[in-house]
């Protein structure tokens, strides 16, 4: 139990996927313009990440390790993620059209989100057991969502600021992301080894 809580806190705050590993930067910068779309994107990522890391764990340990085919992990994980996103999309479309409309283009975009592939690879590299892998996937998604929402909130407020002309648009966004990453470094002393 202690292990699981540790994994949860360290993945959400300390080793945050976006601000510490710099994974999934493209949706982080692309979808953080408005808070409403950031929420949609965040929840889709949580959903897909949790399922992707648990199914990837099953396939890795039950098939690839047994057959000595570990070198196939990259290509297998990509296959898993892509198919999973498709399945999730179909379910959402059928059972919740309003959620489907709200998520819009972000659901298929997750297929190419490197944070999710990274999550599956880290989970394997750290030799997690199944429960740990599920918690790891969920907290990685949650960490992504938290950072995305914080960033979207800041960028919405930035619209009302007098930004110097040379910094408008992409430069101020990157500076904000950098400052946010610096802030998250403050969490690195949260847990004593």
């Amino acid at each position: 139990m202690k292990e699981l809580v540790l994994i949860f806190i360290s993945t959400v705050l300390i080793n945050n996927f976006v601000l510490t590993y710099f994974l999934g930067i493209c949706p982080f910068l692309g979808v953080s313009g408005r808070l409403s779309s950031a929420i949609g994107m965040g929840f889709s990522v949580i959903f897909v990440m949790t399922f992707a890391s648990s199914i990837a764990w099953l396939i890795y340990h039950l098939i690839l390790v047994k057959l000595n085919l570990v070198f196939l992990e990259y290509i297998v994980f990509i296959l898993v993620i892509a198919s999973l996103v498709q399945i999730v999309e179909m379910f959402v479309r059928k059972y919740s059209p309003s959620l489907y409309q709200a998520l819009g283009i972000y659901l298929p975009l997750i297929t190419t989100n490197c944070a999710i592939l990274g999550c599956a690879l880290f989970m394997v590299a750290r030799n997690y057991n199944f429960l740990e892998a599920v918690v790891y996937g969920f907290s990685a998604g949650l960490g992504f969502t938290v950072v995305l929402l914080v960033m979207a909130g800041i960028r919405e407020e930035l619209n009302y600021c007098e930004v110097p002309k040379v910094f408008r648009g992409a430069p101020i966004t990157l500076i904000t992301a950098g400052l946010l990453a610096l802030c998250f470094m403050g969490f690195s002393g949260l847990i004593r080894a």
Partner: protein
Amino acid sequence: MNEIIIKGLAVMGGLGLAFSVTLAYLSHRLKVESNPLVEKVLDILPGINCGACGFSSCRNFAEAIVAERKPFTCIPGGEDVNRKVSQLLGIQSQEVKRVKAVVHCGATKDEKKVSSFYVGPTSCAFVDITLGGLDCKYGCIGLGDCVSVCPAGAISIKRGKVVIDIKKCIGCGRCAKVCPRNLFELVPWQGESKIYFVACNNEEKVGYVKTVCERGCIGCGICVRIKDSPFYLQNNLSHINYQQISNEEILEEAKNKCPTKCIQELNA
């Protein structure tokens, strides 16, 4: 060595097959019934989601028109699109009034007088409620709220003055909704090469107009006194009645006679 290749191929093939079978099965089971007509209508529509029809997107418009079979009009699509949609659904086609936006302020940055300095959010709406920035309380603030909402990219700001490209303008009227000073007017357009308009919105008397702007309409009435003139004065401001325009020469004459040069034209 060979064994690994065979096993790898078998595992990848097996996984791929398993996933594709699952996907195929699920796509069959979870099929969402949608009216094919909606897709057909959607193909005809311009697909720019401008909102001029009163729906938030072209898809919503297509769904409504298929479900209710009532004639709606798609303003940016023009006659062509509306005729095709009506034919497809077998409903009465409606006459489309094509409109273009004009802006009732034609003064450049140097011509508008500014005696207070505004520091704050760069949005016309803010400047309007804080009464800062510009002395003329009717005129264009020039921070471009309209530029950012225009779905066709037809509006630009040149030297502090809003310029509309009437080739690009689709007449959706988003700019008219967002402008805090109601400077935009949608005027009927039947393919003329030029649109004339009064580039001022100041309803005060000459004395006040002259103190805030060099380009303002002073309500002299020279344009109204031309024979068969479509111009009329209201609240010290000249307006054009676009229904009464008989020929362009009168408008050209009025434009040349205007002492403050605030009757302007947009070229297609």
